[in-house]
């Protein structure tokens, strides 16, 4: 056989023209992440001031389109845009033309007609942000696409770890639970390994997808594997996945008994994170969720400054930004 890889590349579809979006952590370099985290940190200082609003993105328009329910992500994107003085508009699938059967392409064309600078989109299907990027001129931010990516979650998690634990390079992070259905896990594996952490995935075999070790992580089916981790990242056990004979696990009761994160499975000083919303008593024991070592509320706070940094970065730093940026006014 000839060289298979050379052949395969010969058939890859042409690459789309470069435009700056945030769709996948895989599109970022380590420098990109460092810049975003530094920007977020400077925004966190500005939020300590009495007047929290910055004029930085005045005149820009940010549209949030949410095809899935969300509390944390949608509210923090909206607040992030407002803190930077951008005009915002939020659209939820329920009650919009989506209910009337409008395709994503047509929704994108419609929103694009208003010339928004940024479209933030959450959608239950993988690749929806790319599709919106194809049919609009806006910068697109992926706020979660199916089981694929949730890049701003991973960035806020990196920010939280760096602020609360220390440098990420060399840290050991255990990600526990339903990796199969988790976009948070996929983005975090990429983000953590990019920044030099080692990642162990822990959970029952049906929920750790075949081949995922190719992303540069190790796998364990034994909850004891979390013992050596600096950070234990607990994934939401998605109850809707466990219905109708899916048989990913025999029961939530059995899952909790085997893989629930409980105080006796942690050692003192281990930090615990969770992307929310939590199922207390299922994947995470309430005593763990409420303990001092839990960083869950810190994650939510980090979400605001990281999303401010993402909007700011797309609109002011990129080589192909839509408008000439206003001068930096970060404190």
């Amino acid at each position, binding site marked *: 056989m000839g060289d298979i890889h050379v052949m395969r590349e010969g058939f890859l579809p*042409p690459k789309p023209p470069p435009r700056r979006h945030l769709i996948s952590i895989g599109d970022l370099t380590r420098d990109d992440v460092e810049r975003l985290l530094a920007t977020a940190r400077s925004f966190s200082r500005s939020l300590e001031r009495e007047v929290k609003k910055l004029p930085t993105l005045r005149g820009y328009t940010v549209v949030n389109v949410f095809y899935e329910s969300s509390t944390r992500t949608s509210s923090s994107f909206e607040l992030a845009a407002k803190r930077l003085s951008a005009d915002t508009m939020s659209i939820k699938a329920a009650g919009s033309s989506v209910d009337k059967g409008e395709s994503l392409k047509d929704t994108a064309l419609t929103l694009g007609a208003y010339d928004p600078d940024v479209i933030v989109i959450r959608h239950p*299907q993988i690749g929806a942000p790319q599709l919106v990027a194809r049919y609009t001129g806006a910068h697109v931010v992926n706020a979660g696409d199916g089981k694929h990516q949730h890049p701003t979650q991973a960035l806020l998690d990196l920010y939280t770890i760096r602020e609360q634990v220390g440098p990420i390079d060399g840290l050991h992070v255990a990600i526990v639970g339903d990796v199969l259905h988790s976009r948070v896990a996929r983005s975090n594996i990429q983000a953590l390994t990019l920044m030099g952490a080692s990642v162990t995935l822990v959970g029952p075999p049906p929920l750790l997808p075949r081949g995922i070790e190719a992303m540069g992580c190790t796998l364990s089916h034994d909850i004891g594997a979390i013992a050596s981790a600096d950070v234990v990242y607990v994934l939401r056990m998605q109850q809707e996945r466990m219905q109708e004979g899916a048989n990913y696990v025999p029961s939530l009761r059995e899952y909790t008994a085997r893989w629930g994160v409980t105080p006796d499975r942690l050692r003192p000083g281990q930090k615990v994170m969770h992307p929310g919303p939590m199922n207390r008593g299922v994947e995470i024991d309430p005593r763990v969720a409420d303990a001092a070592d839990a960083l869950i509320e810190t994650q939510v706070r980090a979400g605001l400054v990281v999303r401010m940094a993402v909007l700011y970065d797309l609109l002011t730093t990129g080589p192909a930004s839509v408008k000439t940026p206003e001068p930096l006014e970060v404190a």
Partner: protein
Amino acid sequence: MLFVKTERRPQDDLVVRGARVVDPVEGLDAVCDVRVDGGTVAQLGTSLEANGHRVVQGAGLVLAPAFVDPHVHLRVPGREDEETIASGTAAAAAGGYCAILAMPNTDPVVDSAAVLGSLIDDAQADAEVQVGFLAAITRGQEGGELTEMAELADHGAAGFSDDGRPVVAPGLMRRALQYHGITGRRLALHCEEPTLSSRGQMHEGAVSAELGFAGYPSIAESVMVERDLALAAFEDEPLHLLHLSARESVEALQAAQAKGVAATAEVTPHHLCLTDEAVRTLDPNLKMNPPLRSAEDRVALVDGLRDGTIAAVATDHAPHARHEKEVPFEAAPFGVTGLETAFAALYKGLVEPGLIPLETLLERMSAGPARLYGLERPRIAVGAPANLVLLDTAATWRVEEDGFRSRSANSWALGQTLQGRVRMTVAAGRVAFDG
């Protein structure tokens, strides 16, 4: 079993001059002239008299037996917006095909003599190249009860298939094989174990794990291939395996053939040219069933085609309306077109890099697929009906959305530069495409 437009126009008189004439089965490979009188190959030789015939300059080109595609979706009845007999056979002619077989997963399903009869009437009115129609194995392709196969065979069904779906129940599959002894028409099987493929979007492996798509593992195909081969061995009846994608399936087929099971198989250009890595683009034109698999699977398919374990290339040409594919990957239907790009894709992907000789590819695209269904083999020999394709193997061209004769443009090769161009197709004695 094959039907074509019945025309008053007389069959064509041609002289193709100076082409490299290749018919691997006839053992023919020589630069010479070929004369066609009234749609029949009349003479091979040098400096043949034109006798008033149209002269086609073939210098630098390859003249070969025209291709046969054993697996096409013509979408009639039901989705005439996506393809018709006229557009699908015009696309076939442009791809170098003189004959194609259409799958019965239409709306309504081809499961009765009435539906089959109306398709045959349409083909006799509109088909630019010969068309055969497979009928369903089970009524409505629902996997419940057998169609009236003997009657369908009498009315001209070219074979039987529930393509698009597997015959899930092993007992029913066994009955269909037993009935093959009555009809003599090949059973063509879509091998998929539905609880293993379970809503899978792409091959299960490192790429699906990273992208988050539900996986459709190789074992979902190969476990069904092994079951069907075991049933065929038990009943001592032949069968044909559609669109193989997995290494394990090729290995199972090889083992069964070695034991004397009369099993054949086909493979698509996209499975021969691409792997699941291509799905990283999230392009819905890379979504098909079975899915693109790993590099190892691809190697096994190419090896199987070369050594003859896999007898035929089949496009599984599956037209879809543009708006149905302009959606996120998971929302898109399975299937891609292939009639108009098959030769050029395989020439670029397999012949140019030296993976498969041109002669082998020509055999697997013509005599191989004809043999599967007991069709007359297109050949270049005096007295044979003229079924010829004239190929420019040096020509490169870019696949563009508006360049298709098919009504649909959901080609996996869109935007790519391929090598090898069909210059002329003669089907059943008439020039069906003249590029």
